[in-house]
């Protein structure tokens, strides 16, 4: 049942992605209600699939949850900011992540059978949401830089027509960072709580990665909020932040490969 629900979500995310990409291929844009409804339906199946997932251990469930939050943020960006171009990144990424999670196996054999406690699940959920917000900040920054380049170069093609205005992308980047930082902070605090109060096993690599994410995200928020960076400079800062978090994760994962643990 869990893989079936994930497959349904995968299919609906793929259709939603096709709707987002269609105008870039010169096809007529789908009605806005449809571009919102299809991913939402996928999210419905996805949430049920994730809720039934026990034990919540390994890389696959985390990737699946990250995909869910990416789609949630995609729908929120479209609904609140009319930034459907966010889906150009989040659509294929979320679809790919769900596909990868299914390939890895959502409930692989040989995992410890002990279920995680609610605090541990909350820690994972909040941390992954924070990570998705960081990813959204990166996507908004990338879209900003692309639109900036087209506007500066006076090219009036697909990017000019279909991407949101520069200021809106800057606002989306700002909001993602400002909301992402407290979310990651809460995730880190819950991680410490789980480790020291709950007695659960937390690997050193997780602590290193969690702290690094918190620090670089804090820096990105600091330069935006305290030093009032905006526009291109803030976009570069967001991209550097996301790249650092991703590269350190890859490095740590290469040091301890395997799909049974997220880190």
């Amino acid at each position, binding site marked *: 049942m869990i893989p079936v629900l994930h497959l349904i979500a995968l299919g609906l995310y793929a259709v939603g992605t096709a709707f987002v990409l269609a105008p870039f291929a010169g096809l007529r844009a789908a009605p806005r209600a449809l571009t919102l409804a299809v991913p939402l339906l996928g999210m419905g199946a996805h949430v049920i699939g994730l809720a039934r997932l026990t034990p919540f251990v390994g890389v696959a469930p985390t990737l699946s949850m990250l995909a869910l939050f990416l789609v949630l943020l995609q729908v929120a960006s479209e609904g609140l900011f009319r930034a459907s171009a966010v889906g150009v990144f989040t659509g294929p990424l979320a679809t790919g992540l769900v596909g990868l999670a299914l390939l890895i196996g959502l409930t692989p054999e040989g995992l410890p059978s002990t279920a995680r406690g609610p605090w541990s699940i909350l820690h994972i959920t909040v941390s992954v949401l924070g990570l998705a917000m960081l990813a959204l900040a990166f996507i908004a920054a990338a879209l900003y830089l692309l639109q900036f380049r087209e506007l500066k170069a006076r090219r*009036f093609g697909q990017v*000019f027509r279909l991407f949101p*205005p520069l200021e*809106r992308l800057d606002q989306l980047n700002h909001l993602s960072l400002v909301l992402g930082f407290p979310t990651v902070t809460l995730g880190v605090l819950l991680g410490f709580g789980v480790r020291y109060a709950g007695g659960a096993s937390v690997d050193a690599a997780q602590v290193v990665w969690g702290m690094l994410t918190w620090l670089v995200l804090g820096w990105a928020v600091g330069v935006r909020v305290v030093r009032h*960076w*905006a*526009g*291109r400079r803030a976009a570069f800062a967001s991209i550097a932040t996301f790249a650092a978090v991703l590269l350190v994760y890859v490095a740590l994962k290469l040091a301890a490969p395997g799909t049974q643990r997220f880190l």
Partner: protein
Amino acid sequence: MSITVVGVNHRTAPLDVRERFAHGPREIPASLERVLAAGARGGVLLSTCNRTEFYLNDPDDSAPEAVWTLLSERLGGARRASEYGYTQRDREAVRHLYRVSAGLDSMILGETQIQGQVRDAWELSKAQAGPALHRLFQSALLVGARVRSETGLAAGAASAPSAAVAVAAKIFTHLAGRSALILGAGDMAELAATCLASEGVRVTLVANRTYERAKAIAEELRARALTLDEAWDHFADTDIVLCSTAAPHAVVTWDRVAPAVARRGGRPLCILDLAVPRDVDPAVAQLENVFLYDIDDLQAVAAQAAVQRRGDIPAAEHIVSEEVERFWAWYGGLAVVPVLKELRDQMERVRADEVARALHRMHLSPEDRAQLEHFSQALLNKFLHQPTVALKEAAGAGRGYGLLEALKRLFGLGPRDDA
């Protein structure tokens, strides 16, 4: 019974002729009254800067001549207005209005302003429109809305001033509340300023080489007048700059505006250079967060939108054709009722006359006379039943108009639409 459009538009008449034909809202009722007096049962006058068109419900085909006479008077008698115009009837008249409402007949393909102008024309002529034109204009507005929502005919910015708005809208989240500075007194800048103002942009400053000219424009726009030298400092706080001076060389240079731009703190500045030769040194575009566009760029945006819009013409024409048939089915049904009544009345007169004549020759008892009356009535009903049913069915299916004309011709009924 006929729907007719008589008028001129931007394709058939030059601007100086269209200007003479243009009707202000107060002139419309009197002109319509004059045309209706010539025999039309209803009329709507659509008058914009690009067209003056009388839509008439004109059973006798007598009103077009009255329209041409009325318009010719506005030419001063030297020329005939009909030389500049066209007359279309029935389906083609309906198709014409639907195409106008959809923006298919506009100078700028797909422009949306015409929809409001069609609505205004209908509102102004409501008292004189009559039921058929009332329904026609109602449906024309729906056709316009349908074309715009189901096709890309109104997508993008298809003129240089509207392209200026489109470009600015790709930089700023909302244009409402943004401030604009106008450099120079060119017509294009004024046009672009009008387009931006319709999106809520406030023209706060007007600068010109001569202060008096700047003051005159500033008063019109409720802005503050400046000399050119005073303007450079305001590049720090304005959002959009529209340049349209008559200077033979660039007046907006790096040296003049770089210090002010540096004080913007990363906020974008959109400079729209609408002058030929250009007012802004291209080096200014190298300044951080400055987005500079000249008239060629805006025309490129407009041309791109126009190409895209042209691609949607077949889809829009398909919708128009569909809606013309739908209207014509309704209109055909509307025309059937009075003709059937006239046919029945005529047949009833023949029957009554013939029965009276027969009764006069025969000496029948009252019972037999009643029998004969009843027999003739039944016979008439039987004769008329099949044509009535066939005509009503054809009208319901949108094919009633041809049959109706045949019936009128065969039985010599009412006025005929010979067109």
